[in-house]
């Protein structure tokens, strides 16, 4: 079914997609003429397929559960923010805060993601085929961030337990983020993640980064700084 945003109101399109009957067989949708609108496909809960033909604005596929959403274009700030499950695949570039605070699901970005990609992520798997901007994975708590290109300044600042894999250069690491050993377990996980994104790059080409865990607890040696 084609939903044309030139003819239909955004709110009615979102309402329709948010209320798909479980028993319905029609579970394939195409949204045409998105024209940079915000919050397209926000709050979907059903296992449906949606393809958006064109560039979208902010918070596309926010809070997604179960749905499989493909964006055939670029996305604005906060794509798949707070996603719980399902899959979001962006064929173009993403703006800042892609996958912010997301608890689960998979976000694939074929192009680049700008600053703060995966900020405060809580379990999502993010695979970026291009590069990411500064402060990516800031305060990231769990899940995986895979970057096939380069990473900007202060990668993984104040990181908790997210694993970060970068193939290219890292401009600088943030506070408490350090390079870690790539064990067999991590190579298997990374291979599986790359496969999800349709990439056959070898895991050996990546470096792994994680938390040094020095900011977890208050360090008594720093008491004079307060």
């Amino acid at each position, binding site marked *: 079914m084609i939903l044309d945003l030139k003819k239909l109101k955004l709110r009615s399109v979102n309402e329709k997609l948010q209320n798909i009957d479980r028993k319905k067989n029609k579970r394939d949708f195409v949204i045409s003429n998105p024209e940079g*609108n915000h919050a397209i496909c926000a709050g979907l809960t059903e296992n449906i397929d949606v393809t958006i033909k064109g560039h979208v604005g902010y918070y596309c596929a926010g809070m997604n559960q179960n749905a499989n959403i493909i964006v055939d274009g670029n996305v604005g700030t906060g794509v798949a923010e707070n996603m719980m499950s399902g899959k979001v695949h962006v064929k173009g*570039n993403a703006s800042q805060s892609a996958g912010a605070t997301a608890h689960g699901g998979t976000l694939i970005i074929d192009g680049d993601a700008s600053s703060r990609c995966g900020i405060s992520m809580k379990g999502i798997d993010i695979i970026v085929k291009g590069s990411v901007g500064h402060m990516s994975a800031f305060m990231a708590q769990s899940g995986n961030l895979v970057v096939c290109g380069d990473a900007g300044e202060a990668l993984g600042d104040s990181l908790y337990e997210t694993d970060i894999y970068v193939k290219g250069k890292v401009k600088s690491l943030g506070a408490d983020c350090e390079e870690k050993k790539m064990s067999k377990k991590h190579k298997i996980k990374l291979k599986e993640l790359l496969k999800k994104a349709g990439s056959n790059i070898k895991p050996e080409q990546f470096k792994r980064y994680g938390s040094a865990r020095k900011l977890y607890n208050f360090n008594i040696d720093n008491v004079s700084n307060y």
Partner: protein
Amino acid sequence: MCGIVGIYLKSKKFEKSLGGMLSKMLVSMESRGPDSAGFAIYNSDKNKIYKYSICLNDMSFEKFKKEMKKKVKLTNIEKNSDHVILKSIEKPNKILPILESYQQISLVGYGKSIEIFKQVGSPSNVVKKFNLDNFSGTHAIGHTRMATESAITTDGSHPYSTGEDECLVHNGSLSNHNNLRRKLKKNGSKFSSDNDTEVAAGYISDSLKKRNLKQTLNKGLSDLDGFYTFIAGTHSGFAVLRDEIACKPAVIAETKDYVAISSEFQAMAHLPNVNNAKIFEPEPGIVYSWGK
């Protein structure tokens, strides 16, 4: 919040439709800035005529025209809503003191190619009021304002022009503008409002006396403290700069015919062939510029 937009035409193909293109961009940025709007449009005249953009405020056009006929060698004087474009071969150092002697009016910009119009009210009303759709030109910059640190007035509206054919629009806020204003005033810069962006515009004009636009903006990275995405226009083109934290958005679309920039992609969705454009976000702390 605020919305900023700009178009630089690489070919002559869209010169006649530049006003219409910018007008739609401004209207779609209404949600980011409903308080006031303004635009600067460049149409390079090859002759030696200067154009002075003036907001009449409470003064009547007839009275103003009469006064100017007495004091200025006029080439043309044209009314557009509450603004006037005064054309003269006389140079700014002669005309500006004359205009400054009238306290009711405000000079919004001057130069050989720039015309500036700005007013309070929603962007859709402002573009209608000045008939932006009918303008042609080579490049143009616009702004929709959500007022934060100074009042909703014409003087508080963007674009700010503090030098010949120069203008600046800004999304963000500066935190060291008071200090900087004092320094610039000592060097002879003049300001007409308490607005932070006017200070940045003054800073750019002051620096352009010694440097080119790219060098000026690079220096601005260390001198201007705060959040910003700037579009700075000159007679030949414009430049874009985001601060290094890059909280304020910007997206650029480039085709073989034009370069467009706006706060959000939706402002550019109507532009010709935009879906095949090269679309990217300007990286923080890097000056991007287009021009001849």
